[in-house]
Each structure stands twice: as structure tokens, then as C-alpha cells.
């Protein structure tokens, strides 16, 4: 096949890669993107989007179950049933629509797409194994966007009843008993969903708490709900392997125990995909297990950029997208540098958690003298009308000039508040800016304004 020469070559069409390619195409750069699987990467195919679909199914099913018992709001239904096979078909249709949409957007931006697995030959040349043979591509600039994959435990290799999040999203039926190793956000999102769908869920976590990235005030409402859903949480325990009856563990006091399970879901994090694409043929400096990048996402080799999960934490789609956009603009000659104030993180547990900027502890550790207050949804009219009174909005600000450093919330549907939180931080809002903005009534967002007012010592509704 004839060699392809291009200005920009993107390896991996996940959120980072495809955004980089679209922007590069929009900027008139001759761009090629290589992807071995469907466009959209982990996010669209086996991550963010399908998990949210299954979580939605679980939420609707729980609602129906709630109505079938004695709901105080006066809605009554007969006992609901779940046809997970049908749910998965519906979920797959959404995924297909979105990945097809990405392909369309790439085409619209005049990006050439190559299907196949890319391997570096040298810092300017990549070979792609396609169905039609090996395609050589030479590029002035290459963007590595290879992403990440679920971490496998050596004593619990994936296969059979031991599954990763990918397989969990394609189950034919809810497991009767599901053991989950790792109480991070992926494990808890899926654990809560399957508990709602009727599985007996047990979560095993090596640390002494769930969701260790958040403080206890934020995770408490989640722990409370998990308890209400009958999820067992075994903290300080180590998974040891799969047994006949389920998961073998060692509890905090060193005793061996067994967790009954017909499926074992391992969610102990994700690892950057730094092997298998010819990194040996390059001389890339590493930063731990990640590819080392500077504030413009440049690697140690000129003309080679890296974005997304392969470059470090937080491994979030929206971080990768912002990096991709920036790198395309840098290649087009614009003066860009990573200058983001906040990358909001959302945990689609029940209730949801959203965090943007610094947590109180992090702000103090960073040397700021802070003021912080929260406003509970129990005092928010809209939350009451949605039977969703658990949780709060909390603001962390500098004491001296009231610059907002971090905003967090836990509660039903608070993921949508991420937009307001991110905007406030990115615009450099002071407490007075949020307190002085009219927030529509009755909405959960009023809790945001009230949290700012309360931090200023001027709350009106508490």
C-alpha cells in the first residue's frame, strides 16, 4: 500500500484522540487517526456511556420496585421485572449511535480514519495492521492517545466468572450474588446498579473506607444508601483468589473468609496502555507508569505528543478532550498551554458525588487559609419534592480574598451541577460572585448559592 504522509497522526480514537483529530481537521491540518476498535474508545464503548445506561436501567427499576411497595407519593404499580438482555440491546444501540456520530464528525472535519493496530517504527513513522495489509504512515506530528485498560489482579485473572467493568456491562442477567473487589467509583457505580437490579452485592476494599479520593462527609450519604440497598462492605480486607463458592478474602484481622458470589467484578483501577504499540522503538521519558508530558502535552521526543489516560491522573474523558483540543491548536501554531483551573470529577453512585477544584483538606494542605461551609439539600425545597434530601453542596474558599478554590456536592442528580461548579472555578469566582448570582427557584442549584452565602456567614434559608 502507498505510504501516507500527513501533518498530524493520532493514535487512538477515544475522547482525547478523536477530539484532537476533529480540531486538527477544523484547523486545516492534514490529519489521520488510527483506531483498532470502534471509534469513541473506552468512554463510548465500555465506559462512561454504557455504564450510565445500565445505571439508568437500575434506577428506573428501583423506582418501580419502590412504587410496588408502599410509596408515599401515591404511585402504585405491580411488581416489576427486569429483562437485562433487552436493556443491553438498548444500551448497545446508544453506543452505536454515539460511535457512529464520532465517525461522522471525523469525516466532516476531513480526517482520514484507518482501522487497525498501530505500531511505532520510529519517531516519525507508524505501521498499521489493517485488514488489507500493513499501512505505513509518516507524520510530522504524532499524538499518542492510547488510553488505559482495567487493571488485572494476578491472583484473579479475568475470565470465566472473574470479570472487568467491560463484561459487567454486557451481562445477560443480574448475578444472584456479585462480589466486587475495589471500592472506587467504578466498583461502587456498578455495585449499586446491580444491587438495585436484585443482585446480592458485597464490596471488598483493602483500605479502611470507600471512595478514598473523597472525604468522609461526601461519601457518607453513599454509604448510607448502600446499606439501605443491602450491600455488604468489607473494609481492610484483601482479595486472595476465586474459589468454588465465590471470592476468597483475608479480613482486616487476618482471618480467611469467603464471599459467596457467582460473579466476581474486579475494579481496582485502570492502567495506562503504554505497551503493545512499539514504545520500545521510541525514547520516551516516563513519569511512573505514565508517559511524561509537559504543560503542552509534549513528550520527551520532539513532534510527539501524548494525551489522555496514558499521561496520568485524573483518568477522565473530559481531561483527555481538553488536552486533545489544546494539542491540535499547538500543532496549528497557536500559543497554548495547559492552564485549566479545575477538572470536575463525577461519581455516578446513588447519590451522586461531584467535586471540582480542591477539597477542604487539599486546600489546607496546599497552604491556603480557608473558609468552608455546606448547605444541605434537606433545606432545599426542590430536593424535598424529588424525595432526594440526602446530601449537600459545599464550597471551599480562600479566607483572605474569598477566591473559590473548590466546590463539592453529594445528592440526587448533582452531576449536572458540575457545569456550574466548573464555570465558577474557571472564571475565578469569589464567594460574592456566586452569592450575588440569582439562582432559579425551585432548583437544587439554589443550594450552591446558599452554600456561598453560608460561607460568607449570610445564609438565608438555614
Amino acid at each position, binding site marked *: 500500500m502507498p505510504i501516507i504522509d500527513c501533518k498530524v497522526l493520532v493514535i487512538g480514537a477515544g475522547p482525547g484522540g478523536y477530539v484532537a483529530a476533529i480540531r486538527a481537521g477544523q484547523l486545516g491540518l492534514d490529519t489521520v487517526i488510527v483506531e483498532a476498535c470502534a471509534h469513541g474508545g473506552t468512554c463510548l464503548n465500555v465506559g462512561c456511556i454504557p455504564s450510565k445506561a445500565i445505571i439508568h436501567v437500575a434506577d428506573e427499576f428501583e423506582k418501580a420496585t419502590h412504587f410496588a411497595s408502599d410509596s408515599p407519593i401515591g404511585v402504585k404499580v405491580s411488581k416489576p421485572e427486569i429483562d437485562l438482555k433487552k436493556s443491553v440491546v438498548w444500551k448497545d444501540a446508544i453506543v452505536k449511535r454515539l460511535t457512529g456520530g464520532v465517525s461522522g464528525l471525523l469525516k466532516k472535519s476531513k480526517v482520514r480514519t484507518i482501522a487497525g493496530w498501530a505500531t511505532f517504527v520510529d519517531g516519525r513513522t507508524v505501521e498499521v495492521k489493517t485488514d488489507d495489509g500493513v499501512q505505513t504512515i509518516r507524520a510530522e506530528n504524532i499524538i499518542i492517545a492510547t488510553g488505559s485498560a482495567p487493571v488485572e489482579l494476578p491472583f484473579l485473572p479475568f475470565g470465566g466468572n472473574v470479570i472487568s467493568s467491560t463484561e459487567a456491562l454486557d451481562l445477560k442477567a443480574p448475578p444472584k450474588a456479585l462480589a466486587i473487589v475495589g471500592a472506587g467509583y467504578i466498583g461502587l457505580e456498578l455495585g449499586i446498579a446491580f444491587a438495585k437490579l436484585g443482585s446480592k452485592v458485597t464490596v471488598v476494599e483493602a483500605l479502611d473506607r470507600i471512595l478514598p479520593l473523597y472525604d468522609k462527609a461526601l461519601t457518607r450519604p453513599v454509604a448510607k444508601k448502600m446499606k439501605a440497598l443491602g450491600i455488604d462492605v468489607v473494609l481492610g480486607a484483601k482479595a486472595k483468589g476465586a474459589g468454588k463458592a465465590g471470592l476468597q478474602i483475608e479480613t482486616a484481622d487476618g482471618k480467611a473468609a469467603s464471599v459467596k458470589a457467582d460473579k466476581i467484578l474486579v475494579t481496582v483501577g485502570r492502567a495506562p496502555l503504554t505497551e503493545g504499540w512499539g514504545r520500545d522503538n521510541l525514547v520516551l521519558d516516563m513519569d511512573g507508569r505514565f508517559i511524561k508530558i509537559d504543560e503542552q502535552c509534549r513528550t520527551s521526543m520532539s513532534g510527539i505528543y501524548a494525551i489522555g489516560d496514558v499521561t496520568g491522573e485524573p483518568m477522565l474523558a473530559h481531561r483527555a478532550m481538553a488536552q486533545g483540543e489544546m494539542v491540535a491548536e499547538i500543532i496549528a501554531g497557536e500559543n497554548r*498551554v495547559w492552564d485549566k483551573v479545575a477538572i470536575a470529577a463525577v461519581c455516578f453512585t446513588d447519590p451522586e458525588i461531584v467535586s471540582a477544584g480542591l477539597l477542604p483538606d487539599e486546600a489546607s494542605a496546599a497552604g491556603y487559609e480557608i473558609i468552608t461551609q455546606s448547605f444541605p439539600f434537606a433545606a432545599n425545597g426542590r430536593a424535598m419534592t424529588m424525595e432526594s434530601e440526602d446530601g449537600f453542596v459545599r464550597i471551599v474558599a480562600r479566607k483572605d*480574598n474569598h*477566591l473559590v478554590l473548590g466546590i463539592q456536592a453529594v445528592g440526587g442528580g448533582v452531576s449536572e451541577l458540575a457545569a456550574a461548579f466548573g464555570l465558577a472555578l*474557571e472564571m*475565578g469566582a469569589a464567594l*460574592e460572585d456566586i452569592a450575588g448570582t440569582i439562582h432559579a427557584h425551585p432548583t437544587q442549584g439554589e443550594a450552591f448559592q446558599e452554600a456561598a452565602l453560608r460561607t460568607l456567614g449570610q445564609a438565608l434559608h438555614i
Partner: protein
Amino acid sequence: MGEHIIKLPDVGEGVAEAELVEWMAAIGANVREDEVLAAVMTDKATVEIPSPVEGKVIWQAAKVGDILAVGSPLIRLEVDGPGNVKPGEVVEAAPAAAAPVKTKPKPKDAPKPAAKKPKTNGAAAAPASASVSATPSGAPRAEGDKPVASPAVRKRAADAGIDLRRVHGTGPAGRISNADLDAYIESGGEPQARSGGLIRKTSITDVPMVGLRRKIAEKMTIAKSRIAHITYVEEIDMTALEALRKQLNETRKEGRAKLTLLPFLMRAIVKAVADQPQINAIYDDEAGVVHQHGGVHIGVAAQTPGGLMVPVAHHVEARDLWDCAAEVARLSEAARTGKATREELSGSTITITSLGAMGGIVTTPVINHPEVAIVGVNKMQVLAKWDGQEFRPRKCMNLSSSFDHRVIDGWDAAVFVQRLKELLENPAMIFIEG
């Protein structure tokens, strides 16, 4: 406490309006009696307006570049005592708007209240903030603090190559606004290249064409759009004149200005136009008349800090060489320091332009409309010249002269320049009468 209104005084005979070129006293400033409040410019001269009273500036009539009518309120001061405005009296804010002047007044500027709001304010103002205490702000950023700015401001700064750490933020918590960035750019903040590399600059600085610059632009437009220029260049052997000049300078009386080339050229022009009066003239093309002047009033183009000015040596025909030298020295000093009067800046009938050592070998001078000729002096250099037997070093210089071809034919232009050449190469002829 009262208010005192100062109106734009009569700044020159026949002057109906003046352009505000500078405010020396900002709103809120306390001024003493006789302290200069503002500078206005008429057709030619800049006039400073002093304060007749002591007080605090509370209102300014216009912004720099606006045209004000003579007699219209210029500034309002808050003064001890009653002032010259009765309480509650409505002051006619802008007679300029009503005055029958030909330039367009800007009525929207005149009645504007004292404190101008920055352009960038708007809907973002927090309506509920009245109930919230003011945000502490304004203090310089502590070391290591990141600059706070919205993504839009950050992008603008990046595009302009500006490191926001160098920009002072005036917003809450030291937030940098678009206006702060503008102020930094206007103050001459330099773009910083990232790690020493080359960067693209996409900033655009808008420089208002006000004052002298605007006058120059207007005059140049008229000259180049109405006059059909013909430029004629001739080389002059200056060796003899230079020797004479050196001799005269070495033996000059104390207190006399040192002779430059200009006085010789001025005298040579007087001599040459005596034979060709059509060169020393003003062409009124609307009336269809060429006014040939008996008096030779030579404009001498001078570079000043504000731009090009042309002070005029009047009646050069009645000035001797030394007098010409003294007059040129006096006028160029007056122009440079902005002290030249209206009279000293008008009335020329022919103009000399010289850039001295910067003069280059040829120029295409633009005629000082409505004159019909301009004589341009190029740089002098020693060239090897063949005298028929050998090469000799000669001090040579080009004269680049432009003429209004509508009234002066090429032949006449050539005759004029050849006459100048003859006079300058044989300088004794300049001083022989008849």
C-alpha cells in the same frame, strides 16, 4: 462648597473650535490656581488651559481627540465657596453640539457623567450583591499565587504572548479582567516568548489619530490627492559652498548662530524665485488663481516629538545669511518644544525639507499644500569626480524637488533647479546683487 465651570477660552483669532489633545488633571484630582488642566490644539498651535481657581476636578467635557467649540464648558471643579454655578442650575452641557462649527461634535460625549464606566461592564453585574459585603481585592498577588482570570482572558493573553503573572488584576480576589489586560498592553507590556522560542503575536494596538498626527494625515491626504507632483533630482557639487561655510563659521562673530547649509539654500531660493515668481506661489485651485508672492516665506520642515511640523521663516528676501541662520535655529527650537505660535506655523510660500545625514540619495517630497514647490535636501557625500584629467574628491549632494505640475511645467521646474545648482556651486553668486 460650590461648583466652578471653566469654559474653553478664545485660543486665537478666528478660532471657533479646538481639539482636546490632553487632560493634565484627571477626575478626582485636586488642582491649584494656575495649574494646567488641559491642552487643546487649534489648526496649528497647542494651547494650555490653566485653572483660574483652586478645586477638585469633578467633570470633564470630552475625551482626547474630541473637538470642542470655543466657549463651551471644558471642566467642572468643586471649589470652596459658592463657585460660579447656582445650586440646581442646569448647565448647558454642550454648546459645542449646537455651535455652527463644521466638524462633527459628539453630543453623546459631552453630557456623560464624570465617571466613565469601563466598556467591559454589563449584564454580569451582580444584582443581589448589594446585600453582600464587598470583596477584599486589589492587593498584589502573593508570590506563587496563580493569576486568576477567565478562560477567555487567558486565551487572549496567550494569543498576545502575555504572561498573566505580570498583569495586575483589579477584580475580586485579584481577578484579571479584559480591561486589566488592555491596560497592561497599553502600558507597553511586552509579550514573553515561551522558553525563548519565537511566537506569533496576534495583538492589535489601536492608536487614535489625534492632535498633530491627525493634522498631518489630513494635510498629506489633501496634498497627495489634489496636487499632480513632479519630482526632479539634480546633483550639486557642494565643495565650494562647504569651504565657504567652514570659513564663515570659523570667523563668525560671537553670539551668531552657526551656519548650516539651510541659510545658503534659503538665500539661493530667494535669488532663484526672483527670476521665476511662479515658483514662490500659492495655488488656490478652487478659485482658479495662483497668488505669486513678492515676499519669500520659507517653511522649514522639522521633526518634533509629536510629528512633522513646518515653522515658517517670513520675509527671507529681507534677511541676510546670519539672520536666516538665527531664525531657523529659533523656529526649530520653538517647534520642537511646542512653543511655536500660530503665526510662526503658517503663511509659507515655499518649503524646504531636509533629513540631514538621514536624507538618503533621493526623496520624493510632498508639496506643502497649497504651495507649488518644495526643495528636498539629500545627504552629502564625498564622491570621486572626473575633472577631465583625473578623479578628484568632491562633496556632492542631491536636491530632490517636487513641483505642482498643474501650474509648473517640467521645463520651468528644471530651469529653477539648474539655477539653484548654479548658485550653490558658485556661492559667491548668491551674494552678488543684480
